[in-house]
């Protein structure tokens, strides 16, 4: 162990491999040998195409993979100094209660439809005070709703999820995740289901909440623009591997890996008028596949 607290990452993933069942007998190596670390107060991003394993990586750190015994994890996930691979349910529960929060993509389905919003936030603050509601906890939950961008939280806390708009629901999810004061927040495609104008406001909310509470952030998205505007460091994933990582500006301005280069070129080709439409050539994909096998 190092003596300097600054050099000890809050969460460190080493050589992580995840195998997920996809059918009765088939399974897929969703993540292979991923290394990743996030320091206290740092904001990092994971970008990649669908199926690149970025979500699975995020869920692994929060211990939120499917509970099926056929899900296999290897490698090491150290959260706040504790090795979590092979840890029992109680240890994971401790991590989720106090250290790692998660925000998901579809704000409607990730809220319980039959429970009032306020109660869902309170549950995150004090899971044990479900039956005897504590006014202190209630007060706290209102504060977190306010922090998540609701100017009149009392009104919102009395509503059910179906009574809120998509952007409001996403803010409630942010409030839920932040309410237990986690040290690390993992946001998995938090704005993909939202309209562009709403996305902007939600991202702003996320940014202010995270910095006001001094929480570390792992932002997972297929949208490089979203990740770039929010993070300091980026991991690029492809086919279950991290192909490149580095500071956001370095990744954007001087990518090293041919895949990152191609990915950025295709993204730029979509928005910049003077670049011809460019998609990652099949030859490159095949070449990377061959390297995988080797």
């Amino acid at each position, binding site marked *: 162990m190092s003596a300097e607290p600054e050099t000890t990452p809050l969460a460190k993933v080493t050589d992580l491999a995840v195998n997920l069942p996809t059918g009765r007998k088939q399974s897929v190596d969703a993540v292979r040998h991923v290394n990743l670390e996030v320091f206290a107060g*740092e904001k990092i991003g994971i970008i990649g195409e669908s199926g690149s394993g970025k979500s699975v990586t995020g869920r692994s750190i929060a211990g939120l993979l499917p509970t099926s015994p056929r899900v296999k994890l290897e490698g090491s996930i150290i959260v706040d100094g504790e090795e979590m691979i092979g840890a029992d349910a109680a240890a994971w529960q401790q991590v989720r209660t106090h250290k790692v929060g998660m925000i998901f993509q579809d704000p409607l389905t990730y809220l319980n439809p039959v429970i009032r919003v306020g109660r869902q936030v309170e549950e995150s603050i004090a899971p044990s005070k479900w039956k005897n509601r504590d006014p202190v906890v209630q007060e706290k939950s209102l504060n977190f709703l306010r922090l998540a961008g609701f100017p009149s939280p009392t009104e919102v806390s009395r509503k059910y999820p179906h009574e809120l708009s998509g952007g409001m629901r996403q803010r409630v999810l942010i409030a839920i995740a932040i309410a237990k004061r986690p040290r690390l927040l993992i946001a998995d495609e938090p704005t993909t289901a939202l309209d562009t104008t*709403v996305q902007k406001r939600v991202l702003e909310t996320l*940014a202010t909440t995270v910095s006001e509470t001094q929480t570390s952030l792992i932002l997972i998205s297929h949208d*490089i623009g979203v990740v770039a505007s929010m993070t300091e460091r980026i991991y690029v994933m492809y086919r279950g591997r991290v192909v490149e990582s580095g500071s956001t*500006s370095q990744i954007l301005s001087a990518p090293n890996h041919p895949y990152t280069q191609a*990915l950025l070129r295709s*993204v730029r080709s*979509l*928005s910049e008028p003077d670049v011809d439409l460019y998609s*990652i050539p099949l030859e490159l994909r095949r070449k990377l596949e061959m390297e995988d096998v080797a």
Partner: protein
Amino acid sequence: MILEAKNVSKTFRSGGRGGLAVHAVKSANLTAARGEFVAIVGESGSGKSTLARMLLDLHPASEGTIFLRGVDVKSMSKNQRRDFRRTVQAVLQDPAGSLNPRKSVSQSIGEVIRLHKAANTKRDIRQKTLTALELVGLDPASHYLDRFPHELSGGQRQRVLIARAVALNPQIIIADEAVSALDASVKAGVLRVMADLQERLNVGYVFITHDLPVVKKVADYVHVMYRGEIVEHGPAQEIFQSPQHEYTATLLDATPSLDALDGAAPTAPGASAT
């Protein structure tokens, strides 16, 4: 001028007592022609998909008229209607649900060719199917004939949909969020196919999307929809350079882009950037 919407409106009545009227589209005007790339942009609930469905004559317009070459779609004879269905093709949203999961690629494309009698013998139909698949860059085409939708990737499915539209040699393709669900690289590939077809076959597009950068990239003419109304329209360059309507400006402003960051000061790992 080929396909034209004149003052079309669509009002849905929400069911039950009172029957609250919802104005999905309010007197919209739009024209689409061969070789032209027309885009309709707007956020969810702006009415853009409803407008597309009216152009396709899937929803009848509550008010106003859709014309194809000056003929009112509503008053078309059977022959004219068949011609309309062939001339104006659709590539719709939802890459997973747009192909019947129980029909192979050759069945899905072949049945359309047969319906419009674009080819008659088995061999001709097969040949036409292959040509269409090649046109959209699925190569070798024969490789894809017997595949079912679940055996294709999202980008491939979208190409099959475009191939099916192209097989009938249409003049206008109405594409509703046809590339929105795809990854950037795949999206670029599909768009390139579409642009290529525009050039080679002189196809015209009505392209419905919420994705502004894409519109900026490929569209010739843009309509911006907001709450059922076309609030602004004009050549793409004008709209993007000097948006007149407040909403267009908001929309442009909200779009995340890499340009802003390229020049930004690099931030060291571990340091806080707030």
